[in-house]
């Protein structure tokens, strides 16, 4: 993607972290020494050659659980974020481009969605529908789509005013063409950043859902479930219990570092540059 700011050390850390995560997720079958639910030792054994990070609350290899968990976490977070963007961006852009009553209706509907407490929404829906990944992803996507809509609408609204979009309209271009060719390419970098943030949020949200028991189904477990499984250990300062939570935090931090990098302002503190 064009015009990204130069790489900073922080950004590098972030990129490496995210990359590592994706690699874990992608190559889980090859990286994980043990199957997800194989018991290899006692409860919360200390790290050993066989269990690199020690064992979990029922003696399964924590490292393997983490690796597999990375996969689940990634798939769900990525899918839900992707869907959220598909919905949010297209609607948001459409609203911004069409303006007028279409914009009003879409925006008010979005306000409505956002006014419904996330928690109640998740609880009710996840209680109503069978608990499987599809539902989970869809619920998360719906909730995130509202935020994406809001942001992408704002981004597009700025661009729509620009002359080159007007010129395209004057030419008689279709809405889809204007959105895809005139607006999207210029909205990429803020959208990319938003994507990162939404992804990070999805990870946290998923882990919360799992913590509430609304989340991922066994035998697989996302990182949130891992934290939940091992939470008792935290009280007794069990090393293994710290890892999943730390992993989530680290990942989210890395994503944010990347985002910050993408968003890095070139405008200065001392005033925008004007000609002269």
């Amino acid at each position, binding site marked *: 993607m064009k015009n990204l700011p130069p790489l900073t050390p922080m950004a590098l850390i972030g990129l490496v972290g995210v990359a590592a995560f994706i690699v874990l997720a992608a190559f889980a079958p090859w990286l994980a020494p043990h199957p997800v639910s194989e018991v290899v030792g006692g409860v919360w054994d200390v790290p050993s050659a066989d269990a690199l990070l020690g064992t979990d609350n029922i003696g399964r290899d924590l490292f393997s659980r983490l690796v597999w968990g990375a996969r689940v976490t990634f798939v769900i977070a990525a899918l839900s974020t992707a869907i959220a963007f598909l919905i949010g961006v297209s609607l948001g852009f459409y609203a911004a481009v069409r303006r007028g009553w279409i914009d009003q209706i879409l925006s008010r509907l979005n306000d409505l969605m956002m006014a419904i407490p996330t928690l109640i929404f998740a609880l009710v829906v996840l*209680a109503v529908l069978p608990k499987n990944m599809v539902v989970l992803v869809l619920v998360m996507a719906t909730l995130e789509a509202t935020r994406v809509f809001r942001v992408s609408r704002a981004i597009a609204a700025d661009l729509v005013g620009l002359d080159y979009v007007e010129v395209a309209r004057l030419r008689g271009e279709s809405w889809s063409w204007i959105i895809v060719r005139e607006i999207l390419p210029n909205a990429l970098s803020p959208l990319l950043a938003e994507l990162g943030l939404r992804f990070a949020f999805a990870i946290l949200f998923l882990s*919360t859902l799992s913590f509430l028991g609304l989340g991922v189904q066994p035998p697989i477990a996302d990182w949130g479930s891992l*934290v939940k499984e091992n*939470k008792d250990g935290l009280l007794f300062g069990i090393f293994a219990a710290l890892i999943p939570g730390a992993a989530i935090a680290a990942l989210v931090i890395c994503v944010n570092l990347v985002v*910050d990098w993408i968003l890095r302002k070139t405008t200065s*503190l001392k005033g925008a540059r004007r000609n002269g």
Partner: protein
Amino acid sequence: MGGPPLADGIDTEIQAMSPLPAQKTSGNSLWSLLVKRLLLGLLLLWAVSLVIFAGTQILPGDVATSMLGQQATPEAVASIRKELGLEQPAPIRYVKWLGAAVTGDFGRSYSNRQDIAKSIAPRLKNTLLLAAMAAVIAVPLSILLGILSVLYNGTWVDRTIGLVTLSAISLPEFFAGYLLIAYFSVAHFWLPSSATVSDAMPIGQRLVVMLLPCLTLVLAVLGHMMRMTRAALLNVMASPYIETALLKGLPWWRIVWKHALPNALSPIVNVVALNLAYLIVGVVVVEVIFVYPGMGQYLVDHVAKRDVPVVQAAGLVFAAVYILLNIVADMVSVLANPRLRHPR
């Protein structure tokens, strides 16, 4: 839940958050503006009530049977359904429910026959109290940190603040909560791990008990607000009048404080509102971990029991809180904007 929406430092979000979307038509006075917003809010609330009602209608499992359980003979079920007025068509029930709700009567809980308004009140009070406590700490702190990181933009101060706050939002809440417990309560007996407050409790003790959950919440919202403050300020710092101020020979702090902050208020206020709403609506996890008797736990209990009226009531209350906060935020940012305060 799941942490407040992390959308840090995006101009676009700043704009997304700018008050009074579209209708920046000056000329209309503040009052008419306020009224307009309130009406809009009410409308929204009404729409929400519709959605919530509809949503709760599709909760699985028949209330009556799940109440009677194994003793659910058809007659018994029928009588219960009658008693609960379930035999009426949904629209009628909706109208009745809404009619009562506006008078503050949320009906009685299916599961324990108690007046919902009465049982919600103390829970809501607790939730608001905790939220307020967290806000009182988090809001000034985050804004202060935001200002600092702008003052020292690009220096190690800025970077440290950024990293710390970032780490704070990156910790899953429940994880952070348990860590705090493990350290402050179990490892050292400094602070109580559970926050079962009651009205009998002296205020001092109450605050102590609430400290850990409060701290957890602060961690959760601090980053978002700080980063938004910083972004908004930086945004403003790019405007010509900042250069003007600079060329007046004003010191940096005065420029940030007097010239940048007032113009960055609107996005800041809005992100604050967003996070306050989160503090009130999204704290169930914290309430569970710290055994805090707030709305969230109450709600979850009753969702589980298919206690439709309670879910509806709670949903409505939460939505109202959210909407109200947004209106307040809008009005504040209007007041912060001379264009709207002093129309030509």
